[in-house]
């Protein structure tokens, strides 16, 4: 465990990402409470104001403080991305693993289905799903999750297919281990590092996907009044900010920078975490001795 943590913090990017993530998490927890009032107080007679001491980044199209909104938006944006990626990873993994376990022609056709699903424009898929489910935070998360899922299915399928052909898995089969056991223990275990990297690197994509949905008015619906603080997300902010870009660029740049920083932090963290599962970039070749020792 200690070795793992050292591996995590060992690289400069890893260390930075941990610090960033902690800051982001803190913000997500305390944001709405601390900055919620500033973020939701409207002033329709003072919209799109330039930076001032009261409003470091100026005000948006409804007179609200842009900086406060960016900070408060951390929570919902993060939660949406988290739920979406979890759904995607869960479904994708199961689907991919199932295909590998069944094997044969089903696996091949299934692979093509995954590739088609993957290649189909995710925003269109999301729109269709939201049209079916009615717009809302939950629908947005499910829609994005379903459109990212094939990515994980593909990774699982490709990596697992590669691993399945490796010597030690054949050996495990010879030793009489069940298919399911092989699936979970060896196959998934071996591709764990790739999966971890993938999960974290998809965070940024999920955040961006929410913003695209908001552009079409299908993201998280706006609330009004004081409780609006719980429905602020960077996607919607970004969309509104771009509408007023020439007048007040900060309205768009605030959430855009936030999304980029988050994407970066999660990506670096994922890379670092992946390395702890697998110190070298190449898969370690295990011997028969390792397998029998591990199984007894």
């Amino acid at each position, binding site marked *: 465990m200690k070795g793992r943590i050292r591996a995590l913090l060992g690289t*400069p*990017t890893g260390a930075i990402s941990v610090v960033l993530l902690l800051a982001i998490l803190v913000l997500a927890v305390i944001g709405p409470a601390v900055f919620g009032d500033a973020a939701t107080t409207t002033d329709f007679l003072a919209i799109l104001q330039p930076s001032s001491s009261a409003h470091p980044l100026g005000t948006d199209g409804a007179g609200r403080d842009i900086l406060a909104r960016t900070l408060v938006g951390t929570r919902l944006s993060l939660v949406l991305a988290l739920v979406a990626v979890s759904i995607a990873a869960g479904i994708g993994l199961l689907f991919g693993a199932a295909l590998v376990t069944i094997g044969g022609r089903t696996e*091949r*056709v299934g692979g*093509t*289905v995954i*590739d*088609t699903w*993957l*290649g*189909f*424009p*995710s*925003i*269109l898929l999301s*729109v*269709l799903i939201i*049209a*079916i489910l*009615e717009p809302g935070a939950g629908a947005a998360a499910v829609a994005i999750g379903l459109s990212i899922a094939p990515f994980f299915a593909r990774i699982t399928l490709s990596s697992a297919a590669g691993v399945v052909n490796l010597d030690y898995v054949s050996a495990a089969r010879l030793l009489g281990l069940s298919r399911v056991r092989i699936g979970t223990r060896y196959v998934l275990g071996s591709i764990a590092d790739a999966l971890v990297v993938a999960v974290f690197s998809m965070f*940024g994509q999920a*955040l*961006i996907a929410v*913003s*695209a949905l908001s*552009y*079409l008015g299908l993201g998280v619906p706006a609330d009004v009044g004081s409780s609006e603080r719980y429905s602020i997300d960077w996607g919607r902010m*970004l969309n509104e900010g*771009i509408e007023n*870009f*020439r007048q007040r660029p900060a309205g*768009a740049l605030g959430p*855009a920078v936030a*999304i*980029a*920083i*988050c*994407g*970066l932090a999660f*990506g*670096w963290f994922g*890379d670092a975490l992946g390395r702890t599962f697998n110190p070298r*970039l*190449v898969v370690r070749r295990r011997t028969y001795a390792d397998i029998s020792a591990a199984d007894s």
Partner: protein
Amino acid sequence: MSGGWPRFLLGRLIRVVAVCFILVTVVFVAVRLVPGDPAQKAVGFLDGTRKEKDAAIERARSDLNLDQSLPRQYVQSLVSAITFDYGVSFRTQESVSRVILDRLGSTLRLALGGTMVVIGIAVPLGLIVGLSTNGRRKGLEVGFSGLTGFVGSVPPYVMATLLIYAFVNSLPWFPRIPEGSVADDVLPSLAVGLGPALLLARIIRLETLSVLGQDYARTARSKWLPSGRVVVRDVLPNVLAPALTIGGVVFASLIGGAVVVEGIFNRNGLGSKLVESILIGDFPVVQAVALLLGVVVVVVNALVDVALAVVDPRRLVT
């Protein structure tokens, strides 16, 4: 290995057909899951008495074959998919084929442009950074990783807004909306392509490093072969695989997926049409365009597979 190709191609073809079949089914189901009565939506804008409206709704229902049983509707949608008879749009009454053809040109140009940006930037960039770092120059590595991670996380339409600010408003080099020349496609292609280009560059760099780190390349270099030869013979082929794969994915997804960027540049693409049609319940257009997009993806993926097999015949086995 001449026996490998026919079997390979046949296998791919069967898979394409199978997935198209699944596509038609999925689209059929999805479109019918959207709440609301499509006949009602088709008639919605009519001005008239209650009775006139009710009659119009009944007519629309029979026009759309909605008064028939689901299995029959399914068979009908299969038949129309094969015969390319997609009916007319509710909103404008023009044929769906016309709707699609009108928007195909602009969409294709953006897809091609974006793909060219992705491959044209990622391959040279990834190669150069990979070849010049290779374990040394930690600073460049972190800088590259940071830059690609940051820019890769910038949403395409933020990219578009920034590009417009720089190259349309500040430096009047490009048109703001399509004007009929090739210049129309430059900024939109960059907007959709830069992010994926940088992410692909990372992968290419990793592939480059992985090849350079492997034994046979090291052996080849140690025999004093010029490194240029190593690059072309060993590195490039391995780099082509992810480049082609991701290039294919990018192309296929741009055929429908550049909705937001299209909106910013005021282009009329298939993606925006599909979204609009889903939102107002224009059944025929949704079915046809969704199907078309799916087929494009399947076909492009199959073509990429073939291309990869040409580059690396070992792939004929899977």
